[in-house]
């Protein structure tokens, strides 16, 4: 598996909970961005040639604000630069505002074959609290349009919102399950540093649910989605078997991926070394660097074997399928017993937080929802 992530850093407005690399600009020179993307794709194709691309993911920011032409040019350039799997998954994140929903068809024509829609909530008052620019009707409309245009699509919801009742969430979630086709991303609202929500929360403007209530939300979510045939294959991602996001699996399975665009990260195995790439976060600086030197990344950093197995464990344990010991061993160059204390593994297994088959480690449902604690104990 080999994925290409393309970051579009612009949004119409910033949502107060979001800590992603997103920027609001009055005007964007789309032609210049097309050029820059092409140059950076060429750079990475030279750096890591010959891999077969299995997925492309347009994330942001708000990639549904891209001109479809830009999307097409990027896909074309990737196809020119690397061999591509005929079954390549090409996902684009879209916002449900009417303007953007209207562009879904053109994105399909540009080559996109899967969309992920940032619905976030099916309740108007929650959407306004979250600072979203769309309402419930637009959300429903965009889901319809996605269904019309794409065989595979997903949408996001946020739960455990301030003052949200579990019973309300159950209703909203059941409605969402009925609207979905094979994939849903369900995130517990998290207060991130450096966001307006962080300030407002610190100031006491609103209260977040307690750990216990958060747990209750999570548990009920698991049971509803499980019953609906959309079990969690990852902490916050649910899919019918076979409908998982192939692109996101490259992260969680710790295979190589390229990051194109401002603030995009990559992991590339080059001559036995794992290299981390990281695009400059500010769009204008990234653009300038790409024009100067062909890429907008900071100096590439070598990820040490110690860091590699930690990353692969940290990512892999988010998946229901867990992590094969062989992956940890190849990333670390050590045997599994030298990485993970067998006594601690045994204790975790006895507590019902992980299962051990002998050649892999898998989180249980209980373990998935306490993963930070599992790592705290294990590492």
């Amino acid at each position, binding site marked *: 598996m080999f994925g290409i992530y393309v970051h579009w850093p612009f949004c119409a407005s910033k949502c107060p909970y979001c800590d992603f690399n997103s920027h609001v600009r009055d005007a964007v020179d789309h032609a210049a961005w097309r050029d820059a993307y092409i140059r950076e794709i060429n750079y990475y194709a030279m750096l890591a040639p010959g891999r077969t691309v299995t997925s492309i993911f347009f994330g942001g920011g708000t990639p549904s604000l891209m001109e479809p032409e830009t999307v097409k040019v990027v896909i074309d350039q990737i196809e020119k630069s690397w061999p591509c799997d005929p079954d390549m998954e090409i996902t684009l994140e879209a916002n449900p505002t009417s303007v953007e929903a209207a562009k879904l068809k053109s994105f399909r024509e540009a080559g996109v074959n899967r969309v992920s829609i940032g619905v976030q909530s099916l309740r108007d008052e929650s959407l306004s609290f979250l600072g979203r620019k769309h309402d419930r009707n637009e959300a429903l409309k965009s889901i319809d349009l996605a269904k019309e245009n794409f065989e595979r699509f997903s949408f996001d919801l946020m739960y455990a919102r301030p003052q949200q009742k579990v019973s309300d969430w159950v209703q909203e979630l059941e409605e969402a399950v009925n609207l979905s086709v094979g994939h849903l991303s369900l*995130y517990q609202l998290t207060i991130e540093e450096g966001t307006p929500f962080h300030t407002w929360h610190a100031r006491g403007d609103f209260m977040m649910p307690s750990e216990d209530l958060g747990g209750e939300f999570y548990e009920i979510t698991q049971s509803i989605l499980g019953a609906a045939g959309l079990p969690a294959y990852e902490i916050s991602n649910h899919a019918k078997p076979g409908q998982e996001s192939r692109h996101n699996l490259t992260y969680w399975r710790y295979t190589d991926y390229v990051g194109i665009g401002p603030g*995009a990260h990559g992991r590339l195995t080059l001559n036995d070394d794992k290299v981390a790439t990281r695009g400059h976060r500010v769009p204008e600086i990234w653009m300038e660097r790409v024009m100067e030197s062909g890429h907008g990344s900071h100096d590439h950093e070598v990820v040490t074997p110690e860091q590699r197995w930690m990353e692969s464990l940290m990512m892999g344990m988010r998946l229901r399928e867990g992590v094969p010991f062989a992956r940890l061993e190849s990333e670390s160059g050590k045997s599994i017993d030298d990485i993970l204390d067998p006594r601690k593994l045994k204790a975790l297994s006895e507590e019902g937080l992980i299962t051990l088959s002998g050649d892999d480690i898998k989180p249980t449902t209980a373990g998935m*929802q306490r993963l930070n604690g599992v790592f705290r104990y294990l590492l």
Partner: protein
Amino acid sequence: MTKPLAYIRNFAIIAHIDHGKSTLADRLIQTCGGLEEREMTEQVLDNMEIEKERGITIKAQTVRLSYTAKDGIEYQLNLMDTPGHVDFAYEVSRSLASCEGSILVVDSTQGVEAQTLANVYQALDNNHEIVTVVNKIDLPAADVEWAKRQVEDVIGLDASDAIPVSGKTGQNIDLLLEAIVKKLPAPKGNTDPACPTKALLVDSWYDAYLGVVILVRVVDGYLKKGQKIRFMATGATREIDRVGMFTPKKVILDELGPGEMGFITAAIKDISDTQVGDTITDERNLAPEPLPGFKPSVPMVFCSLYPADSSEFEKLRESIAKLKLNDASLHYEMESSQALGMGFRCGFLGLLHMEIIQERLDREFDLDLVPTAPSVVYKIHLTNGTSMELYNPVDMPETTRIDKIEEPWIKATIMTPDEYLGALLQLCQERRGVQIELTYVGNRAMLVYRLPLNEVIFDFYDRLKSISRGYASFDYHLDGYEEGDLVKMDILVNGEGVDALAMVVHRTQAERRGRQLCERLKELIPRQMVKVAIQAAIGGKIIAREDIGALRKDVLAKCYGGDITRKRKLLEKQKKGKAKMQMYANVEIPQSAFIAALKMGDEK
């Protein structure tokens, strides 16, 4: 030439904290020309930053002043600035023993306080003549007559000729100087150059250039450069390389004669050779017997000090050693704790001494310390007929081996405005106090209680201050050992004992203390993967218990390609931070929880 005895006056200034002792000393120095105006700083005798800041004196100081009295004679006045706290009671008693009189300073707005009393009694024990001054008369709230009446009513001293002064403005300092010359007696001593030298070692400290500097009061004979001397208690012998005095500037002299105060140095590196109260004599002309009153310093309060960052253990070791250079009464030895790593078990003269050392380590050496709860020295009589002293609760023998345990008691004097009396009585009762006396002076009450020291070292003073809004004053002296129903209380985390939290408590207090500690720990220990039981136990018997529910949900909602580096760094940091965590039966306890639990006061 040394001064004839008749023209020497040696005196101490005694006062409750903040009654203006140091400022008054400043004014005396200034009036006698010991320092130029431009050289005066505030509290010139308190050299250490911590002394100035807390308004307390830790090391004794002497200043020789030259005063020409109304009779036309130039007198040598030796002003002794004594440590002002009960922890240094022995040091104070030696300072006082080197003088013939005292100036009793009473704040005209505060009146007599607990420490005033304790100091006066000590001065009287040393047969001092006392000149009473009523200080701070420059303040609008000053009430000289009231303060004088307090001196008469509470202390029983005739205050009719008490001198109203202002250390701040210098008002009536001239009257005070005359009174010193007229009222205080001249020292006595043997002036025969052939008599065996006897000098009292008043205090000593380490000076980076001179080595140990020894403050002395010569009683008989002379001290000169080149003289071979012997410290009679420690047996150490040295050759004097400097003799001098403080004005307060250091001035080198040829000799110190009978009745005089000053300093000597003798190339001494180790301050333990110079014990306060020792007698210095001439190695070639030994005094038949030492001056009375010597006692080796005995630490009364113990606690362990650990570096918050275990990599700073070496720094802590060096820093304590440096403090020890200057403080013979500080005792320490290395120990290790499962919960806190490597550290030192330290012995102090009392609570203030302990606080000062901790504060100096923090401030002067920039060490982040974890102090354990203070404890006292218990005498344990074992069933096999032997006995031992217990310095650390962890070392408590099995109960079956213990015949009886004795604990130190104190006699405490508390002075308080009467509106706080009820609450203070209750506090003393709670702490197993036995009332000895309760008397009123106007609207102030004087309480005398006997209390077990182990009840006092645990936040008693803080509680006293908070109950009385700072108005009550407190002083104590040790009052023997008594048998008590004492037990070792362990704190267990999922059944496993936490050594740093073990304590010796009276059986009647155990449940209350155990419950408090468990409740506090429940707040401090984060939820774990498993349920955690925190218990307080005496022997095998659980007396208090709190449970911490298991972690219900703790996971990042989002973690994609762009998050890996940041989240991995968090994991790495967390892994490193685990050095500061201690594992107890699979429970990770952050060190901050221990620290907070150890700092726990009664109210929480």
